[in-house]
């Protein structure tokens, strides 16, 4: 582990959890003091935390939740279009800042492509699908995969269930 990375991880581990995890202790050549109290478990993170955090980011930066939750059936296409144009720019900026997306198969749609993988989760075959994986086919959708995700680490007391705070203006 590089010195900077070690220093960083140690610092944040102590800051947010009040103790160093075992892996860092080993790297630093330290050991738990015999008889010391067991390290309290860090605040439990639920599997939905990351999803809620992403929703909160898209709402904060681009107001995506406001848009999706609004009944837009009564508005003209012009009105919807104007709002979407602004929202689309901000959503994309925000998405690109935190999630690096790349195509699963980097090719031109409509041209012949080799299959990158036989895993149906990565490459979905359409049409007359034979029992044995074929060597290739026509690319219809390049797919998306997450190359990197870089969400900020919220504090231990962060309440993920609040996607957007209420706003109250003090006059």
């Amino acid at each position, binding site marked *: 582990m590089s010195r900077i990375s070690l220093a960083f991880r140690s610092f944040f581990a102590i800051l947010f959890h009040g103790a160093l995890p075992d892996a860092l202790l080993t790297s630093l050549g330290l050991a738990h003091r015999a008889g010391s109290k067991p390290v309290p478990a860090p605040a439990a993170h639920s599997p939905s935390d990351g999803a809620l955090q992403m929703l909160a980011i898209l709402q904060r930066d681009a107001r995506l939740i*406001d848009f999706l939750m*609004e009944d837009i059936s009564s508005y003209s296409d012009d009105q919807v279009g104007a*709002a979407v144009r602004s929202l689309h720019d901000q959503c994309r900026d925000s998405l690109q800042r935190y999630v690096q997306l790349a195509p699963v198969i980097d090719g031109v749609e409509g041209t012949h492509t080799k299959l990158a993988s036989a895993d149906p989760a990565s490459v979905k075959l359409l049409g007359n699908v034979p029992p044995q994986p074929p060597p290739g086919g026509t690319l219809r959708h390049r797919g998306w995969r997450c190359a990197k995700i870089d969400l900020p*680490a919220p*504090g231990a007391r962060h309440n993920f269930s609040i996607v957007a705070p209420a706003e109250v203006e003090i006059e």
Partner: protein
Amino acid sequence: MKYVIGIDLGTTNCALAYAALDSEPVGLFPVPQLVNPGEVREEALLPSSLFLPGALDFPAGSLALPWNAEPAEVVGRLAQKRGVENPGRLVSSAKSWLSHSGVDRTAAILPWSGAPGLQKVSPVEASRRYLEHLRTAWDFHRPDAPFTEQEVLVTVPASFDAVARELTLSAAEQTGCRNVTLLEEPQAAFYAWIERHPGWRERVAAGDLILVVDIGGGTTDLTLIAVTEREGELALERVAVGEHILLGGDNMDLALARAIERELAEKGARLDGLQIHALWHNCRVAKEKLLDPASKAAQEPVTILGKGAGLVGGTIRAALKRSILNAVLLDGFFPEVTSQDFPERRRRVGLQEIGLPYAADPAITKHLAQFLRRQDGSMAAPTHVLFNGGVLHARLLRERLLKVLNGWLATEGKTAVQALEGEDLMHAVARGAAYYGLARRGKGVRIRGGIARAYYVGIESAMPAVPGLPNPLKALTVAGFGMEEGTGASVPDREFALVVGEPAEFRFFSSTSRREDAVGTLIEELGPEIQEITPMEVHLPASEGAGQLVPVTFETVVTETGPLQPWCVARDGRRWKLEFNVRERIPA
């Protein structure tokens, strides 16, 4: 000491560049800062915004920085964002306040319209905190080369007077730096150009005159640099600087937003404060799209989303038309004027609202015309022009400036200017400052310049007093324009009597346009080109013999690091330094 560090302490953004002393190229230091609660990110610029949070502004623990778990304040992007929602706790444009002689700049006065009960800060203190953020961020990333032990160059507008420079220096020294030097921003921009063009000597020749036009977010700064020859080598000399003009890109974006707001008001749409801010921001985005040389669009949509959950329903639509953009930017800020058209001075009204003294005339071309007009009435004829500052990213505006300038030169029978292409207009000043740090160590060319103003001490005429009328005031030149760093000048034939044990105050004046006044010259009538700045005081300790009159003469010293120091010298050689009295308020 391992590095030279160049800091652009801007009105709206700060930047830090550095270079290793063993002549590594100049690099930019991305500044880690809070960009959202709980999110630290590195950005190339640190917005010059300081937010003084209350207990209810941010969730607990969400302000932690890698080097400080619980900071008492927020500096940078998050401060700027939160300041829009809660402006009463935001300190911004501290630098403009630093150069404002109408207020006490060491008193805790910011935010100017602050929330009641808020612990305010002084303009000096706000500047210190931006520098402090940069210091701690640097130390976190380079613990082996502490910031305070490096050579630090802080840039100031060329138009800053001696007091504003001294206050900037003291803010930097309060961060613990031992080795701080001030550098003028347009010079730094020119150093950045030299750094990027190692073959610059091929581009200019002795006798050339380079005009640096620096239009930032909040200020416009003008400088002339002459190319001379000295011992067979090309040398550079800064020969003129402009007045302090509080006029920049923010004013332009605001003017565009106001134009659209008026249009919306005619259609009956009312905007609240936050929406106006959104409009301001979206106008800037639309402006940049229209100013893109590739854009042919006649207009760009400007959308303000509805408040609360009624996002689509409440959306207000407008458009920034190219015709409005041209009318507001080109005709408003860069009108085609003659070289005789000077900016209009604000009419003095009895009671002026206190606040920043924004330029009364937004026409930058008029300010340029005035700047180029010499004391003898002739026009300085630049041969080259270097653009700097975010506003001049826009080719349209650069072209307009060139067109106006070349028109004036043609009238004078001179050849047209050549534009020196600057790069990285947002970071050039910081980069140039770091390069200058190397240049001072003999690794590059230096611009000679000396002080950017002439300074005067006020002397009341010895005339019989007329009731109700103050005695006419004369001004004694105590430092001439261009006095060099590390030199001094004295006025031996004018003595003043100081009373030992009592404070004595001198009225102090300066001028950016009177470049010919030699030390000792007495100016009989003070025209508008001589402006009063902060008074100075000196206190001879009573131990020297209370009540005695001591005749003294004036001596002015410009130190190696830039600040101007006025001294009183007695006949026997005893010396007392005069201190700027920034606590005093000068009536406008």
